[in-house]
């Protein structure tokens, strides 16, 4: 066990607890946008894909695999945020148009 690993595990544990706290407050009504929003957030793997694909010493396998990973990751990020925005836009329009 090296220091970095322990540090990273600490971050992981804290992030999990934080995630539970924050997400427990999301109302049922917004669970679909929550899911597609978190979907967009895990698109952060694109960062990893870029790092892998952009290695200077990349050989053919790395380049091909990295290329695919970047394309998939980008689709994940862009699609995720756009779809979530489309959904949330519909919720936002709803003003107190009619008093109940």
């Amino acid at each position: 066990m090296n220091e970095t690993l322990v540090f990273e595990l600490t971050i992981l544990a804290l992030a999990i607890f934080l995630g539970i706290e924050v997400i427990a407050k999301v109302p049922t009504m917004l669970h679909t946008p929550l899911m597609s929003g978190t979907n967009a957030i895990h698109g952060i793997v694109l960062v990893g894909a870029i790092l892998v694909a952009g290695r200077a010493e990349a050989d053919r396998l790395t380049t091909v695999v990295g290329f695919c990973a970047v394309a998939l990751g980008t689709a994940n990020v862009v699609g995720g945020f756009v779809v979530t925005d489309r959904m949330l836009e519909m919720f936002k329009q709803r003003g107190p148009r009619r008093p109940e």
Partner: protein
Amino acid sequence: MSRTTTDLLYLVTIVTFILALRFLSSPKRARQGNLLGAAGMGLAIAVTLAQDGLGNYVWIGIAMAIGAVIGVVGARSVKMTAMPQMVALFNGVGGGAVALIALAEFHNLTPLPGELAVDESVPILLSALIGSISFSGSLIAFAKLQELLSGRPIVYSGQQFVNGAVLLAGLAVGALIVAGTEGDVLVMALILAALVFGVLFVLPIGGADMPVVISLLNAFTGLAASAAGFLLHNNVLIVAGALVGASGTLLTLLMGRAMNRSIGNVLFGAFGSVQAGAGPAALEDGRSVRSTTPEDLAIMLNFARKVVFVPGYGLAVAQAQHDVRALAEQLEAKGVSVLYGIHPVAGRMPGHMNVLLAEANVPYEQLKEMDEINPELPQTDVVVVLGANDVVNPAARSDPGSPIYGMPIIDVDRAASVVVVKRSLSPGFAGIDNPLFYDPKTSMLFADAKKALEDVGAALKAL
């Protein structure tokens, strides 16, 4: 850009992600939150591209352009009813990206035999395994939701054994990698086994259980992203992955609770295949069903003071969300109070009905969760059930022999009268008989939800 600067800017991204999720606690700020998260993502990508020693920009640019086009076109063109499969698809590609990262990293880290440390091999193993399961599992979920595959559970004898064997084979390869055996072919074998497992694992799960599966696969991709973060020593991946993992896990548990079933039962129970034969036989015991017409329903609604609509997946299939809103507005103009009762597992993903009704401009104040609507039902004159079945089945309350006994339901049978709009008497997705249909105060309107709502609206106008 130096590593320290990069990490600091990644921290900014982490903060935007957390705020994005926080803003989701109210519909008013949720959209800003999402835009903030997108900005944070843009920052992280820009920072990554500006990192020292990065090359291959042309290929990266082309790949990003391809991905962006796919993402925008897919996201812009998808119908709200098809949202579950779209989310499944984007979830899958994220998982696939992680598996590929694991393969490339393994290939990079192992030019020299026997050098791979455990804190590198274990994250490789986990990201390849979980990412691949999420990828192929999501694709199968997509195919089921898109009805390219049957929504019924696909089962065969010895299924659990086969699934277990495939998973074990994958884990055995993983153990070899951790033990220090090297060769790209090992990681490829691991990915292959995990892909097969993902397919086998989702195949036996029925369409009605998709909310649980999608949530779970969402959590998987999150965890895979975290594992990739350990592999690349990248904090933003670790945190973002953990947030997604927590969210997916919470939603999975919530969906399971809303169906009163354990997650194990959902995943391995092949729900809906066993009871499929029981439905029709039970129908022949002399109980009678009262059917009604759109005109009669219009009259009932016209004289009601309070009406509750209970939508289910049938509403989404019929694309009738706009018609129900139009009818509701007609009723409100006549002074009838209208609410919507939404069961947590109505639809094919958590919160799916809310999105559909929001799309149709239904004010979200009128959307009531199960716990809010149930106390209102005894004072409700007419409940209109639109394409929902199991979530209003009183057998869940009264019949200990029913497969859904104990599942919390919307108590529509406590209202003064109930109208069920349904195409036929056939039992719902889970193939369970519904005594609500034979209740003396229930009448059935046999029609497609969209057609029925249009006809009722026209009849109401003519009154």
